[in-house]
């Protein structure tokens, strides 16, 4: 689906954490993002949506956003948006005393 170039990482998280089959996982993520399921694998549409919601984008030369969430920071927002625990985020909070 394009991974974090689109929304494949988000759909994958629903398969992993809630054992959702593909159709259900896509619909769940699309509802959370307010987009269509087709847009989930569209990198053009998803770049904008990910920027708006702070879900992390590619650090390419033409789209570098060092002042926006990326990587571990973005996963804080992904966990909140999808309402699923992300292990490394929980451990980050615990170890950093947040």
């Amino acid at each position, binding site marked *: 689906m394009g991974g974090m170039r689109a929304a494949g*990482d988000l759909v994958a998280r629903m*398969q*992993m*954490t809630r054992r959702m089959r*593909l159709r259900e996982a896509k619909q769940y993520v699309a509802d959370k993002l307010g987009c269509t399921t087709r847009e989930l694998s569209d990198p053009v549409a998803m770049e904008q949506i990910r920027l708006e919601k702070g879900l992390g984008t590619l650090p390419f030369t033409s789209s570098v956003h060092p002042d926006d969430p990326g990587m571990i920071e*973005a996963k804080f927002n*992904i966990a909140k948006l999808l309402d699923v625990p992300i292990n*490394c985020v929980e451990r980050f909070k615990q170890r950093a005393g947040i």
Partner: protein
Amino acid sequence: MEARIPTRMGDGSLVEMTRSELEADLQAGTQVAAQKAKVPELTQDELDHLLDIYASPARFTAVDIGDEVVMTNDGSGTKHIGNRVQDLQSYEQVLGVDIIELWQIDYSYKAIKTNVAHEGQSMKIAQMLCTNPVQYGAMPDLGRYSKPDGPFDNWSELLPQGKIQEARDAQLQAADMLVGDISYVADHMVAAGADGIDFDTTGAAGDADFLAGLRACRALRERYPWLGIEIGMASEFVLGMHGQIEFDGERLAGMWPKDQLRMVQQAGASIYGPAVNINTGKSTAWNIARAITFIKPCMEIAEIPVHVNVGMGVGGVPTCVYPPADATSRASKAFVEILKIDGY
């Protein structure tokens, strides 16, 4: 005279076949699988669809826009261009893979146990730098626990000597130790931030190997309700090296994908990965029809995502070091469009 279409053999070699020859291979492939696994043959509509995919001379093919499925990769982070974490970043940012996997070259939980702190540190760094889910993967690899590599008598030597009970006892002892090793490694990876654990090539050493994977999965699910657990199989058929082992009262030996999936679901896994090995002497058309026939019954009862193993030597992809994109893309399209798989 019928036009000849470039296509692949199971060993990857490029050959030419007519549409009629491809059609005959598709029919033969589904018939072979149906007879072996005692499952229905593919329908005429499904065979026609496969023929359309495999009788195309296109260099590359794909599903329709919007029909993409989740792609996970065992063996991402392979040090193609840098260290393993840099490769994981490449897999998510350049290749667009959905689930990435940290692994080490000695792809066995037994081997990783001795190096688990360093593997955990790599996982922790990967989690800081990657956005995609990162799972940790290795093989259960039960054979490693038999002499001379492990502590237990070698059942492959005991069986030809007629020492059936001794061989069975050794496999069960090995399975106990394997469950402990998988749990040990998984606990450390979870502590380092892993999103999931991949049991790759489960059942490679037969029914005791499969049992260990199922038991480890159930134990991990009880401890970590949110954890991604992927059980990928070694083969379409569970070998009965023990022959009498049961999980939840059902004998594991002889299970085909549908029953494998039932066990994997009961054990609490998140994702099931059926594997159908390639016959290198047959065409990819023959192989894809055979693979889809084996897997189709499990799609009809799946309650969890099914990620078919579609790669080097399995799932209709030739056994060769550089799998050609024409073959990989045809196999992927066939599985998605006919079986409605959840990923691969």
